[in-house]
Every structure is written in C-alpha cells, then in structure tokens.
C-alpha cells in the first residue's frame, strides 16, 4: 500500500489575544434603556478585562482554522482504552436541538417526560447488559463514576456501623489511575496489587491483601492489555467474604459486550463509559458520562435524583440513604440521549457483533503487527488471543535504533495517523503502545495504520534521526526538550507568559550589559 501524501494544515494563526483591534465587536447586546451598571462602589471593576476586540467573522475563521489544525478523527485514531468509534450524527444533531439543549434541569418533571423516559429506558438497557438493578448518570466521566463508587462505599460501610474501620480499597497496578486516585480522595488507603506472570495479579496477592479493613475492590477486567483474569469470580468471593464491595470498572467493555455481565460474575456495581463504548462524542475530553450501576441492595445509597417510572409517567426521586451528589443535577443528559440513540441503532445483535468485531480486528492487527521487526507483545506467559486490545512493546526497536515509542507516535502523525496510546503510568511494559481497533474502522484503515507503523519502523532502522526528529508534516514540530515545570517559564495564560518573558528578557539584558 502506498502511504498518503499527508500534510497537516498550517495556518500560523496568531493567538486570539494578539488579534485585537480597538473598537471591533463580535457580539452586541441590547442597550436600549440600560443605564450605567450600578454595582456597589466597592465592587466596581477598575479596568475592563484584557479581552481581544474582534469582529464576528474573524472569530469564526480563527477557530475554524484551529479546528483544521487538529487532526482528531479525520485521521485514524486507535487510541487504546478510549474506544475511538463512530459517533452517529443523528444523535449528535438531535441532542443539540432545543428539546434537549434548551432544557433546564430543574424544570417540572411533567415538562421533560420525553427526556426522563429516555433516561429510564437507557437505564433498563444497561441493566440488561450488566444484570444490575439500577443505573445513574450523574457522574461526569469514568473517573467521576469511580469517585461515585468510593463515596457509595463510604456511605455503605458507615450505614453498617463500620465507618472508620473499613478504610482500604484494593486495586491492581493495571487499573486505570482514576480508581486509586478517587479512592484516595474519598479518604481510603489504596492497596495496589502487582501483576503475576500471567498478566493479572495472583489470587494469593489478593487474599493476603484483604482484611477486616477492606472496604472495596475496584478492578477492571479485561485490563487494558486485553488480558482477562479467569479467576475473577474467586476474587469477588474473597473480597465479599471479607465484607468488601466489588466494583467493576467496565472501561474496557467493548470487547466483552454481550459476552459477560457484571452481576453474573458477582459484582455489586459497575460503570460504563458512554463516551467510549456507547458511541458518544468525546469532545476532546468531555463532557462525558460514567454510567454507574449497582444491585438493589446498594441502590438506596446512589446519588440522586434518579428517574422513577410510575404508571407510564416519570418522576425524580432521591434514594433513601443517598450518598449525596458527585456533581450538580442529573448528569450530562444530552450525552445519555446520544448513547441511547447509539444503543437503539445497534440492538442486541449489533452490540454482540461490535464486541466480536473489536476482538477480531484486534487479533487481526496483532497478527500483522507481530510480523514487524522490533515489535513484541507483553506477557509471554499469556500466549492466547487477547480481547479488544493488546499491549505491545517497542523495547527491541529502541534497543536496536534508539527510537522511542513517542518518536514513533510523532512520526506516524506525519502520515495522518493520530497518537496511538502508549500506557498509563507506571510503564510496566517498556516502550509500550496499545492500539484499539474497535468495530468502526474499516479493514482498509486498519491495514493502513499497520502499514504506516511498518514504514516508520523501517525508517527507524534505516534513518533513526528521521524518526527521532519527527513530526515533519504536522502543524508544528515536536516540543523542545525543556521542562515545563519551571515556574519562571510555565504559563497557562498569555498574561503570565508576557510577564515572565519580560522578566527573562530583562535579566538577559542585564547579563549582556555586564
């Protein structure tokens, strides 16, 4: 296959703050009858905000150009764990219309029956996919759903008179960082289990970790290397026997949809990422939804309100022992509408097919990728088929050429392939990378992705500097190897940058003068 003659658009747009021309306007508001603002004298704004003054069409073109300087899903993105799939445009369009976008969350329930019915129906559908009894959508992302579980765990044990006793949450080094991080935020101590040689922690390690202090287990399965822990039901038993709750982080649900259900494996609760598995647009990192589901036993502790069906109409109700809230209102309901649209378009057969397809494509990729020089697969002790992802290593390539996984990532972007995911910290596999094909990329796209990687690896052996200095066809070249952790340099705002740059320039001038 010949590779694309791709080059990213380059507009060299000045920062919007640098485009200001005094007197220009981008929006007007009615001023008829509006006098001078009468704020209390102590609160009068002394200087107008240093915002740019720009006309409407110029703002539009500026951000259109910035959008063009973002490759996104126009290229091929197999960013592992994020399940980069198609976002059906009908759902996107409907969710932007006033009957969703114009709804205030505190409207009387009788005025949003359509929306509440969708929430209720989707809750029912997730119950079917998980076996659990109640779902809520308040959590504004997967990490927020993990936090929901940590808060629920806290409330659950407190209600049993074990507040202050059950203070430990167990997870594995292969869990997403949000599990230990949200557990710690909720005041739990985190016990992190290392992996055994099969790519998952040993049952012995778990058994040694549980005690009367165990509050919960927060675990993913399969993990983000495509490895399924076959002892998971025994894990559930061990933790429950010790009095802990078991939470299933279903971030990697795509490969096992319809194949397994959280309830059947014994889990008390799980989360689904609607912005990953259920076709909702990611927005570059949200708004997102971590749909949190649990058993009827745990349901009284859920964050409220929840949608309750009552003789064909829908109302909002706060669960009896609610943990409170993890975020205001019911959640990112426009995203729930999109997820519902996706799931309805797929149906049970389509969902099963998507799971099949994501695993087929991953294994197809694996077969071809492992033929590429310098590419190896993690965990030799786990030789079988992986599920929807496989963790690879470029350790050999690095040893033989000095080229790193990040270099390869940068060079692939020169051919219209966006960043492949590497791995969460810590890197337990050296020079890792983790593509995820999902079900929505064509075989031609997958082949192209592999061809690009093969080409870049070939370049790495022939001309490593070409790869190390990549990208060459992107909007900008790679970042200079200087730390952004220097307070004299870092700047999250233009004002900070200008101030610091002036200080540096002045210091340099002083040195030059001396």
């Amino acid at each position: 296959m010949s590779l694309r003659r791709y080059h990213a658009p380059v507009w060299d747009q000045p920062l919007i703050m640098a485009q200001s021309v005094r007197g220009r306007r981008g929006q007007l508001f009615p001023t008829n009858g509006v006098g001078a603002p009468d704020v209390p004298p102590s609160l009068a704004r002394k200087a107008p905000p240093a915002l740019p003054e720009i006309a409407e069409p110029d703002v539009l073109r500026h951000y259109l150009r910035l959008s063009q300087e973002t490759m996104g899903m126009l290229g091929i993105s197999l960013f592992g764990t994020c399940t980069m799939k198609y976002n059906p445009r009908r759902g996107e369009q409907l969710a932007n219309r006033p009957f969703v976008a114009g709804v205030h969350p505190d409207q009387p329930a009788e005025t949003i029956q359509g929306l509440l019915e969708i929430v209720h129906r989707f809750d029912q559908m997730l119950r079917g996919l998980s076996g659990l009894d109640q779902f809520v959508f308040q959590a504004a992302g997967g990490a927020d759903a993990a936090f929901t579980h940590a808060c629920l765990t806290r409330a659950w044990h407190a209600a049993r008179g074990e507040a202050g006793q059950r203070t430990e949450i167990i997870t594995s080094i292969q869990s997403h960082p949000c599990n230990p991080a949200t557990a710690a935020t909720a005041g739990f101590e985190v016990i992190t289990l290392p992996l055994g040689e099969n790519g998952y922690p040993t049952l012995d390690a778990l058994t040694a970790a549980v005690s009367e202090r165990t509050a919960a287990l927060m675990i993913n399965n399969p993990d983000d290397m495509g490895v399924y822990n076959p002892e998971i039901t025994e894990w559930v038993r061990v933790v429950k026997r010790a009095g802990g709750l078991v939470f299933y982080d279903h971030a990697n649900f795509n490969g096992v949809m319809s194949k397994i259900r959280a309830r059947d494996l014994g889990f008390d609760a799980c989360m689904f990422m609607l912005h990953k598995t259920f076709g909702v647009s990611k927005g570059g990192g949200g708004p997102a939804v971590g749909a949190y589901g649990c058993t009827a036993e745990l349901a009284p502790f859920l964050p409220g309100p929840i949608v309750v069906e009552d003789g064909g109409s829908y109302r909002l109700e706060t669960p009896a022992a609610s943990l409170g809230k993890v975020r205001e209102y019911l959640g990112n309901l426009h995203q729930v509408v999109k997820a519902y649209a996706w799931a309805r378009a797929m149906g049970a057969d389509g969902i099963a097919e998507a799971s099949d397809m994501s695993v087929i494509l991953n294994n197809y990729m694996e077969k071809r990728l492992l033929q590429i020089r310098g590419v190896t697969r993690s965990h030799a002790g786990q030789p079988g088929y992986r599920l929807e992802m496989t963790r690879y290593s470029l350790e050999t390539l690095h040893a033989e050429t000095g080229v790193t996984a990040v270099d390869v990532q940068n060079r692939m972007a020169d051919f219209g392939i966006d960043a492949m995911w590497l791995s969460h910290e810590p890197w337990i596999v050296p020079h890792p990378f983790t593509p995820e094909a999902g079900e929505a990329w064509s075989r031609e796209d997958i082949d192209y992705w592999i061809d690009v990687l093969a080409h870049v690896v070939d370049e790495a052996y022939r001309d490593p500097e070409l790869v190390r200095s990549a990208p060459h066809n992107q909007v900008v070249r790679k970042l200079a190897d200087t730390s952004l952790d220097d307070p004299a340099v870092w700047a999250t705002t233009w004002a900070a940058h200008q101030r610091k740059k002036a200080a540096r320039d002045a210091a340099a001038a002083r040195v030059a003068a001396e």
Partner: protein
Amino acid sequence: MVERAHPFMPNSAPPLKAALLAELGVKSAEELFDQIPAAHRFHGDLGQPPALASELELDRHLQALLRRNRPAAEAISFLGGGIWHHHVPAVVDEIVGRAEFLTPVWGTPSSDFGRNQAWFEFTSQLGALLELELVGLPVYSWGCAAGHALRMAVRMTGRRRVLVPAWMCPERRAVIDSYCRSATPDMAIVVDAVACRPGGALDPAALAAAIGPDVAAVYFENPAYLGSFEPAAAEIVALARGAGAEAIVGVDPSSLGICAPPGQYGADIAVGTLQPLGIHMHAGGGLGGFIASRDEVRYAAEYPTLLNSIAETVDGKLAFGLMLFHQCSYGSREEGKDWTGNSTYLWAVAAAAYMALLGPEGFRELGALIRHRTRQAAAALAPLAGLRLVAPDAAFKELVVDFAPSGRTVAEVNAALLERGIFGGLDLSRRIPALGQSALFSFTEMHDDAAIAALVQSLEEILS
C-alpha cells in the same frame, strides 16, 4: 451474525467478516474469546428493545420522545440558580460542532496543536476576566471546582475546617460535602456554614465569629446564590488571609464585565462555572467548572487539573504542552492531587470562542443588561400584593421572591404560572427551608420587556 452490514461497522458485511476470520484461521469469533471461562459467559436475553438500525426509524422514534419536552429555552422561564438560559452565539455552536473538536480524545502536541491553542486561549481569556494568571483546564462543574479548591486549601494550610455560606446552591453544597467527607474520620474536612444576610451575602459578624486559626479556607460567592453582590468581598479576603486561611471565591463569569474580578479584591483562588460562556443548558449537561489562582508555586503545586502551558517547539515556534503532569492522577495515581480524567474540555473551546466574540465591551454590556433586567423586574414586581422581594437592590441575575404574604406556597404559584406557559423561579422552600415560601427568579439578557410584563401580569392574576 447480522444479515445486512450495519452502517456503523464497515467490516460487518458477512463476506468481509468471513475474510477476517479466515486470516486468523478461526471459524467463528467465538474462538477468540477463549480467555474467558465458559462459566463466566452469558447466553441469555440481553433485554434490549428491538434495533432501529435505519436512521429513518431511529430518528422517528427519538423525535417522538423528545417532542414531548417543553424546553425552558422556548418558553418564558425564570429558572436559574446554577444553570441559566443565556444567549449562545451562532459562531460558538458552529465551532463546537466541528468534528475535529467534537469527536477526538487525544493526539500528539503537534497534531492537537489547534485544540491546544484554543485551550490556551480559553485559559488566557478567562484569566483576563478574573485577573488571575494561573488557570487550569476545566473540571466537571462549579461544585466540583469548589470541592477541589477547598481540598487545595486544606493541603496548603494543613488545617481541616472550611467555611462556606449557609445559603448556597444546595446542589453545589452537596458536591462540596462529597469532596470533604472521608472514609478515615480524622482525614475529613469539616464544612461549617456561615450565616448570610438577606440576598445571600455573608453576615460579617457571623464570619468574624467563625474564623479562627483552624480554618483552611473561607469560600464565598460573588454574586451569591440568592443574587446579592458581595460588597464586602475585599474585607472577607482580608479576614481570611489574616487568619492564615485561603480566600476562595466562586464567581459567575457573566458578572465580570461590570463586577470587580477576584484578582482585584485579592482572592487567592477563584472557581466558578463555564456554562454562561456560550454553552446551552443541555438539561444539566452544559455545566463546566474552572479553578484559577495567582501564578505562584504554592498554588500551582496543588492543582488537580491538567495545566496547558505555552511551550516551544524544537525550532523555536509557539506550541503548548502539559506542565506539572507528574502531580495529576495520570502521573501519580493515588499520590496525585485528587484526580483528573475526562472533563468538559469541549466547553473550553466554546468558552474561548464566546469570550473572543464578546470582548471587553460585550461583557460590560452583558453584565449591565442582566443587572438592568433584574432591577427592572424587581421594580415591576415590588408593587404587587401577595409577595415581598428580598434584598432586591443588590441583586444580579437572581431575585428572591417571598410569597408568604399571599398565603400561597411556591408550588401553588408555580403551578399556576405553568398553566400560563411560564416556568416560575426555583422553589426555595425545598432547598433552603429557612426562607419559607420563597422562590428564586432568574433574569438574564434573554428576558425582554414582554417577558417581564408577562410575569408581572400573571402573578397579579394568581396572587389576587
């Protein structure tokens, strides 16, 4: 096996799927799942409704459901209290609908350059509105931002008690409480409520009595949840800092064209909502939060958010990169500062375009108009029998209307308003019982003379 290819799955055409299976040397996909023990497998009914794989049928179904909604944005609505119907410029709608911003998750600093620039323009412009130089990438909401900021203050001061207004948005307060509780009791953050004056500004005497050497942070809002500007903002900040506490202010950015920014009165940390900055309500999905502070190491070192800094490429060109990445949960798991993850980053792009469209004059006009509408409504409502306005003079965007003189409940009044096609104010009797049968009516730039007149006339009829 689906009989027809599914439109979302290019390889689902049976011959294409068969070819892939042949490549793998397997007869069916089933063989690829051999890692999963048979006893774990589910073979029952997934309980899904029938598929609507044709867009035509799907659209018909969804529209039939959604047309039953009566959105506030298409009615005369006075609902606010944390999320508001504001004007969303058409340009903002187009920008956030661009597939390049709408659909991706993460690329390289080079391939994400445009988005990173938009993010930097978001933080830079928000910083200009706030007069603060350090601004993080967004968090989920105002409440979440406040929760994180309080935790930052606790880490900075080593103290575990924080003060918040007694009459704050109950939704927001509930989120703060979730962020402050702990599974380990002596790690919990004690949240103490400070009494408020009518309209919601802090009672200075109550604050003076509550502050002490064990207080990590004083959190106040300007304007308050109940609408009042906080005229003593500078004094509150001075009192907090005098006690060695951090002064955290929650602000609504739509006020900042006319109201002093947090930087002007010396607040240490500012938090607030992105939603007024060009984002539709989306039934609650329009929320986004921000955290900002002075650009000092002491504060920067405690941010839980991702921080998008200006940077340079190898050839000296402008670029953007993440600073202090090691301190976020992606970098350090449970050792990181709280946590981060997917957030509301699309709304950062919306807010960047919105702030650029408004500019300094637009924000001044917007703030003046909201203040004008609030005062106009107060003046029109004041003469009505059966209601009493609470602290209307200092109100911005929100006005407390007490229906006690009428003997009616808010629920009754609102039901009668709804019959007339009007969404009345938030029922405070359920949210802040101390305020009795009061409602929080919100007025923004979306209300014209006719909307206010319709409210006045309807209330006149209902209360007479």
